[in-house]
């Protein structure tokens, strides 16, 4: 079974802070990590390979340093990696990202594509479904449990819904997006980390991809960022010590009643 896992390198958003004076993002010193949801995707692919044989290809579109995300996925157990990198890819929105990935994946053989549910920098959850559409294959999004049929031709997935989950069946090829609960991503061990650097890694630029420059990067993006600004900062309001819980509860109820909240 041939599985492709698109991954993204993201800043550790919990450590991204806003400079209160300038309102700008402080990204210096913020570590870059493999998108946490993509770890579930990589782990799922490796488990399928372990059970059914095959090959796991990790692919990313991103700046040169995004290679670290590829190494992490290779250290976990991916077999080979493709790095789409070129200045011309910069500024891509989800459509242009999905398009660029699709151009590469169309040249490859695959039975399954496993994405993360969403990348934690933009939280859009759009690249997966857009990629599936551009490749003309079905999708099952927000998967937290995955089974293969005996013959390896169909999948049965538990897809998270707003109320719980649904059990969805599809024939391969299919694109799946992985969410929390699908598995426990393994930590790469020393052996894995050492082997990762020796695994095949192909670097592809826009020319090698052979795409129309009007369809990639900023130019290929139908959306544009007009402005970014810090969110209205919520500040704490009333804070009381509950020396007497009854009294504290009373004050809270008065507050809520005044606000019309209860």
């Amino acid at each position, binding site marked *: 079974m041939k599985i492709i896992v698109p991954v993204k390198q993201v800043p550790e958003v*919990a450590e991204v802070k*806003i400079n209160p004076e300038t309102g700008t*993002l402080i990204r210096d010193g913020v570590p870059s990590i493999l998108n946490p949801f993509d770890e579930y995707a990589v782990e799922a692919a490796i488990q399928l390979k372990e059970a059914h044989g095959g090959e796991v290809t990790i692919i990313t579109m991103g700046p040169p340093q995004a290679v670290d995300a590829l190494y992490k996925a290779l250290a976990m157990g991916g077999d080979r990696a493709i790095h789409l990198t070129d200045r011309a890819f910069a500024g891509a929105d989800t459509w242009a990202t999905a398009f660029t990935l699709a151009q590469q994946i169309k040249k490859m053989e695959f039975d399954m594509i496993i994405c993360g549910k969403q990348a*934690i920098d933009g*939280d859009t959850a*759009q690249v997966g479904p857009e990629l599936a559409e551009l490749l003309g294959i079905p999708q099952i999004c927000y998967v937290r449990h995955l089974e293969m049929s005996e013959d390896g031709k169909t999948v049965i997935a538990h897809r998270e819904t707003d*109320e719980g*989950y649904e059990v969805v069946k599809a024939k391969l090829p299919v694109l799946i997006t992985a*969410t929390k609960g699908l598995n426990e991503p393994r930590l790469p061990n020393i052996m894995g980390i050492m082997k990762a650097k020796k695994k095949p890694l192909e670097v592809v630029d826009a020319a090698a991809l052979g795409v129309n420059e009007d369809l990639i990067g900023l130019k290929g993006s139908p*959306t544009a960022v007009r402005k970014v600004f810090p969110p209205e900062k919520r500040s704490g309001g009333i804070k009381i010590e509950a020396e007497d819980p009854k009294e504290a509860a009373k004050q809270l109820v008065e507050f809520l009643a005044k606000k019309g909240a209860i």
Partner: protein
Amino acid sequence: MGLIYDRDACTGCMLCIKACSFGAIERDGDKVKFDLDKCVLCGSCEAVCPADAILIERKMIDKELIAQYKDVWVFCETVDRRLRSVALELVTKGRELADKLGENLVAVLIGHEVTSLAETLIHYGADKVIVADDKIFRDYTTDAYTITLASLIAPAKPAVVLFGATNNGRDLAPRIAARLGLGLTADCTGLDIDEERQLIQTRPAFGGNIMAEIISPYTRPQMATVRPNVFKPGEPDTSRTGEIEKFDAKINPVQVRTRVLDRVSEVTEGMKSVEEADVIVSSGRGIKDPSNLDLSRRLAELLDAAVGGSRPIVDLGWLPPTQQVGQSGRTVCPRLYIALGISGAIQHLAGMSSSDIIVAINKDPEAPIFEIADFGIVGDLFEVVPALIEEIKRLKAER
């Protein structure tokens, strides 16, 4: 392609450095230099540059083509013959946008045995409802819904199409965007129309650390998914009339490549979904033991609230994943959010910090949740919550 900097034209005013939210511009002698790895090509610097020394190369806008697109459309999701609450929120907001444009609001209702809901959508503001009612739509499938909506949208040329950012809405909208080659903005918390009649889409990014205004200048329709509970539904006007049009998508079952074998609800009896609730009582690790969740359930019942939880509570299996609030769970924005024994880690805050009123009860006066709480009680939840329950009961009895 990208950012072009005319160093000779630059007057060294340094305004662009201030305008850049990404720290991508630095002083370089009496001029500036750009770190293109940090730059997201947002154009903030281009807008403030008095010397026109910065140019972001973009596509051309074809104004004539864009003028052909009219009306605001909203996709109204149904589940088991009922509308999801976000559908009415979208119709209300869509009405406001359509009025600003001086155009019509069209609601697209897809489901099985849902035709009777069309009237409601008109009462909330739709001028026209297109109904695709068929048993093939009983379960949501990406293919059946994409085929239907894409075949409606393409010939009708609406200017705007909105979807609820539910799990199904976020599965469907990107599929349509890719099929029709359109821009799509995820999870909007603000929508408006500007002087150029463009849709301004505001959304949080970087875990809520920053807000971005997104436009889709080159393509139509402009599409967005909208976070549930952000816009409030208006008052229905039962005297409103509108047109109801049936649509037969003529879907061949072989075109639907996924099959839903079963649907399992984990929102057990008496447990509301956190995304649709007006009030949420959420518990964190401070609740200590699953049996203590009864305390939060009792409070929730009294307030007609949903019971939510932080990630550890869900990881421990004390609540189902549908009830987890936060970055890897659900994003909520109720009228009232009560956090019991939750510390307020950034990943939790990312999912609830836009709630109208936040109440926190926590032993630790330093807990970060207090930094955003409108009303914080530093105390033992096992003492405060029972007292709170009594107080609310008393208030209710007085009324």
